[in-house]
């Protein structure tokens, strides 16, 4: 079983020191991922989901925990070994324009990825650039354009083409659609889905858009202040949310009603996310939780569940279900 896993993340933590204060960005997160699977990471700003994505790729060094990718512990790799390993794990960014070099044409940006990894000859690279452009739905002339000359959706397609050029097995998608228009979002989602099927890619899909996460993911993790509050299969988690925070998130979604009578009341949910510099004691969510009681303020709940696949970090998990 474990040898089938593409990626195994065990108890990873990441902290930042900012002006003498410690920011707990990611605390004790574990998960595993197979080829062709998608893990959705959900959370509001400051929940540590982007940091987690980058820590998994060792773009940030973890402070604790282990990341095993294709059976190799990434933290044990030397700089040059890691560099080679990178062709198997890629990342797509939220702001494609910021992630592209403004002084490189689209073609050379994609080609540079292959140059860096020493893949293919000059001629082959050029051919592959064209192949990739076509595959992600860009016209061939786009190769000579500079990123700023493209629309946001097209820029994101370039980002995808570049990540794919090295034929990765794992792609971290860090909010790849949140900067895009709705009609373009769907195009990109479809593209990502097709590519996953074709290439057996594993995705870590980071987003605050729950609908999209449910649509794309096999399994989902909900993060709050750097900690996993709930994780499970997309189906379980969204139809039977256990953690009060997951419910709050789901309650905050404004669906399009089918008639004006079905509009949902705009209820106010208490509080805002506390500063990650001073996380609350006990359960991080307790100051905003309507169900919190004394135990929540002192004791940090551990991630557990009735089944091994659906875990919740809440003292009241069972009570919450019945309510």
């Amino acid at each position, binding site marked *: 079983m474990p040898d089938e896993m593409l990626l195994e993340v065990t108890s990873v933590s990441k902290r930042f020191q900012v002006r003498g204060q410690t920011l707990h960005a990611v605390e004790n997160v574990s998960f595993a991922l197979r080829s062709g699977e998608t893990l959705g990471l959900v959370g509001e700003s400051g929940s540590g989901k982007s940091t987690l994505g980058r820590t998994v790729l060792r773009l940030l060094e973890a402070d604790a925990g282990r990341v095993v990718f294709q059976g190799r512990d990434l933290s044990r790799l030397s700089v040059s070994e890691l560099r080679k390993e990178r062709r198997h794990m890629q990342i797509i960014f939220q702001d494609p324009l910021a992630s592209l070099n403004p002084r490189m044409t689209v073609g050379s940006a994609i080609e540079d990825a292959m140059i860096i990894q020493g893949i293919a000859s000059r001629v082959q690279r050029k051919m592959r650039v064209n192949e990739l452009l076509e595959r992600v739905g860009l016209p061939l002339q786009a190769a000579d354009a500079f990123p700023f000359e493209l629309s946001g959706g097209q820029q994101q397609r370039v980002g995808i083409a570049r990540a794919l050029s090295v034929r990765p097995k794992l792609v971290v998608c860090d909010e790849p659609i949140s900067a895009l228009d709705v009609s373009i979002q*769907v195009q990109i989602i479809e593209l990502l889905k097709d590519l996953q099927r074709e290439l057996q890619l594993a995705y870590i899909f980071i987003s605050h858009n729950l609908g*999209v996460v*449910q649509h794309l993911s096999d399994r989902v993790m909900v993060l709050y202040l750097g900690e996993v509050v709930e994780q499970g299969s997309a189906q379980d988690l*969204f139809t039977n949310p256990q953690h009060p925070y997951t419910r709050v*998130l789901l309650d905050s979604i*404004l669906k399009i009603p089918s008639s004006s009578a079905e509009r949902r009341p*705009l*209820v106010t*949910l208490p509080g805002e*996310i506390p500063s990650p510099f001073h996380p609350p004691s006990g359960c991080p969510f307790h100051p905003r939780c309507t169900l919190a009681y004394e135990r929540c303020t002192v004791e940090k709940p551990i991630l557990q569940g009735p089944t091994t696949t659906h875990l919740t970090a809440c003292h009241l998990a069972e009570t919450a279900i019945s309510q």
Partner: protein
Amino acid sequence: MVQALLTVENLHTEFRRAEDVIYAVNGVSFTVAPGETLGIVGESGSGKSVSVLSVLGLLRGTGRVTQGTARFGSTDLLKLKRRQLEDIRGRDIGVIFQDPMTSLNPTMRIGDQIMEAMLTHHFVGRKAAYNRSIELLEEVGIPDPQTRFRNYPFEFSGGMRQRVMIAMAVACEPQLLIADEPTTALDVTVQMQVLSLLQKLRETRRMSVVIITHDFGVATNFCDRIMVMYAGKVMESAPLEEFLKRPAHPYSVGLKSSIIEVGQTNRVLLPIPGTTQQLTEPPRSCPFVDRCTMAQDACRETLPQLRQLGGADHWVACLRAEEVVRHAG
């Protein structure tokens, strides 16, 4: 029919650039009735913000209104002198912007910024303005308003800043509140808080609200009327119920079905092909034609005008609207 509060007719706005002209708004018309909430929905570049900012004289850079009228009560806002318009802005029409991070003056105490709105219009005296600012802060849900009055924007969270913006916008009891993407920069839980605050204020003050958003979820749960824009033109405009039941423009239908909601498992996605365009010449045919699955030759030859659909107050700019309604229904 009640006298409309704001009537915009045939509005045209363009941006001059070094080498060309961007036609951002191309003949937009809409009305806002007293107490009504209008949701203007569209993607980036649809001209939804630009058309409203044009009316208020708040265009930046080279933006310029070339045509149209915007009657607010009995005055045409577009014909007013700068001073006259300044008297209306903030007093009769309040505005909230998207990014609460940058939309507040970073070097001014938030209390002073709220007071300024009232003092500028001599709405109340200085002492009264102070008391009212405290009340307003309390009303928009900022705890400990006396202390917070003296804080600077950087000492607030995003959601709190947006509350301050709202307090500022309603300080002079405007008849009309314009909210330009008021929740886009916020987290979902905070978005909910801000929307419910807006709803509360709208009800207690009976003001009209125009909310500009790209989010159908926000618009349909908050507004009485939905107006869909594309490429600087109104594609469709209908009361909420009508819009939900019988969307009549292929773009509206496409946009609505582009939204992936929780619970819709295994849904087949039908993306609208292509991308939004930036018009460098005025549109002569339907601007959506290249992305439309229902396009015909006629759509390429004429520029569809807004026309009334059926007996309802339902307006649409599509030659094949009837078919769209039938198809979707």
